[in-house]
């Protein structure tokens, strides 16, 4: 602020001139309004265009999908049905199992850890928090080789279990997000419960967790989508019987001899659950995003 000159009181425009200038200001404001809105709408159209083109291509005939025309000559909604058969169904079931089990595991293991980091006072607590953040930032590729060797000893490579079982031991990102929320809950509630003779576990389950529902929902959503979107993990571990949608769709085009319409239909089907959940739980999402960022 210091760099902007502060005009002396005398140099301020007199009221009369302000009045005369107001019409020019108004036209300038209108022009600005038009410019801002048309730019925003143009950008929004470009952001949505790929999705619209996907949908239009998905309902074309096999032959038309090989041309560069935009509009389907005839609408073949059955393409979604054609895409969603055989392999696709199995990939979907695998994706659902991977996402649901992982989410359940993460919630069960991460909540107590986050609770301890937020409420108990002990030596090494700040160090523990730093380690949580460091492991959160750690690329999954770094520890992949030895872990793969271990899982192959247990004959679990080829399946999705090497990706699901570690979630029983806490997930750094979920611990961090939950902890950030739990710290903001006033301690008085928990103290009151303790005075009433509640043990620490009961206090957590009955008093604190119901208040932390938004954060728990956010963690569950993020974990679910992390698994649903995960490509690297299943690519390394799963054999074709255990492929998830992400791995399957990445190979879909080659396997279907460039049938772009079916590829687009299959791709849209993988997007659908994410979109539905997002529109149902938009608030939870945005809250979670801002919880993990820094402020000020």
């Amino acid at each position, binding site marked *: *602020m210091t760099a*902007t*000159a*502060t*005009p002396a009181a005398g140099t301020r425009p007199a009221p009369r001139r302000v009045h005369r200038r107001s019409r020019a200001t108004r036209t300038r404001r209108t022009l600005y309004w038009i410019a801002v*809105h048309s730019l*925003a709408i143009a*950008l929004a159209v470009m*952001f949505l265009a*790929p999705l619209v*083109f996907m949908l239009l*291509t998905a309902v074309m005939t096999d032959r038309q999908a090989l041309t*560069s025309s*935009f509009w389907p000559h005839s609408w073949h909604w059955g393409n979604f049905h054609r895409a969603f058969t055989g392999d696709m169904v199995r990939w979907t079931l695998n994706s659902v199992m991977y996402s649901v089990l992982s989410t359940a595991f993460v919630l069960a293991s*991460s909540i107590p*850890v986050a609770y301890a980091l937020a*409420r*108990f006072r*002990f030596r090494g607590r*700040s160090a*523990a*928090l*730093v380690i*949580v953040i*460091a492991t959160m*930032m750690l*690329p999954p*590729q*770094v*520890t*992949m*080789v*030895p*872990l793969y060797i271990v899982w192959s000893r247990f004959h679990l490579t080829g399946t999705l279990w090497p990706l699901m079982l*570690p979630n*029983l*031991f*806490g997930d750094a990102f979920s611990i961090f997000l939950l902890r950030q929320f739990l*710290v903001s809950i*006033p301690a008085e509630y928990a103290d009151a419960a303790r005075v009433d003779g509640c043990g*620490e576990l009961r206090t957590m389950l009955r008093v604190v967790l119901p208040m932390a529902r938004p954060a728990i929902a956010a963690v569950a959503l993020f974990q679910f989508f992390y698994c649903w*979107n995960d*490509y*690297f993990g299943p*690519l*390394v571990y799963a054999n*074709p019987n255990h492929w998830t949608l992400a791995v399957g769709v*990445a190979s879909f085009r*080659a396997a279907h001899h*460039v049938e772009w319409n079916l*590829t687009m239909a299959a*791709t849209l089907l*993988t*997007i659908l659950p*994410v979109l539905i959940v*997002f529109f149902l739980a938009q608030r939870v999402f*945005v809250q979670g995003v801002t919880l993990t*960022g*820094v*402020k000020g």
Partner: protein
Amino acid sequence: MTALTAPRAAAGTGTRARRRNRLRVLAFLSPWLVGLGLFFGYPLAATVYFSFTRYDLFTLKYVGFDNYRFLLHDSDAWRAMRNTLWLVAVMVPLRLLFGLGIALLLTQIKRGGSVLRSVFYLPYLIPPVSATVAFVFVTNPGTGPFPAIARHLGVTLPDFFNDPSWSRPGLTLMGLWAVGDLMILLLAALLDVPKSLYEAAVLDGANAWQRFRYITLPSISPVLAFCAVTGVIQTLQYFTQALVAAKVAAGQADTPGTQFAPGYPDGSTLTFPQWLYDEGFRQFNMGYACVLALLMFAVGMLFTTFLLRRFRAFASEEAR
């Protein structure tokens, strides 16, 4: 913080109470502590050990520093590193600028702003594999709608994912499409700037650029810096989009036995994590892959340390 601590036990029973407190902390932390050892401590130590061996899952041979020496002459590894650094240097700043631009645009819109916000956030939500398949489709010169529209307008778009000099710009463009994460964080930061500051500046005669330069920018700079550092950390791990774009553009799939070699076209999309994956899980040079993993770990830790140093608030003890 004092308000949040467990009540101190009465003096006299101090030792017993302290031991009970320690047991309770251990019990709550136990899943994470075990996991830290199993899935972080052990693998990290094992990675160091394997990096001195030649190991293909069947035979293990100690080879000293051979793997490290090989890294110096591995032109693919250096190419992968250069490609990754290219993405860090180009994609991270462009995404930041674009995200900030859209967030600023949204602050200027009163009605319909929330709908537009959802539209700009939407592409980020799409699973990366699906988004990549879609993006390669709409930009492919044969049947893609975008090149077709451009042709109508008399412009020829580059063949993004089949031309080695355009594949990384193509990936960058896709990163700009999925800018929603930065847009939401920056929008929240912009809306947090006190309105009174702007009002005072207007009274002082500051123009729009001055208001942005001397009020907006300083107020949101912590969030900007946070986004920049986490952006670098994420981009160092850039894997999925590059591999899937290459696969879809090349029209090749994984069939057991003949897996897809990353980097199409002409090694231009080969990023460092992909090279690690290729060495470890396609060619089964586990020992050498561990050297690459350690290098990745070192660089990642460098930026994470910087993040923790620069943003004390991020890991602060206090509630925010």
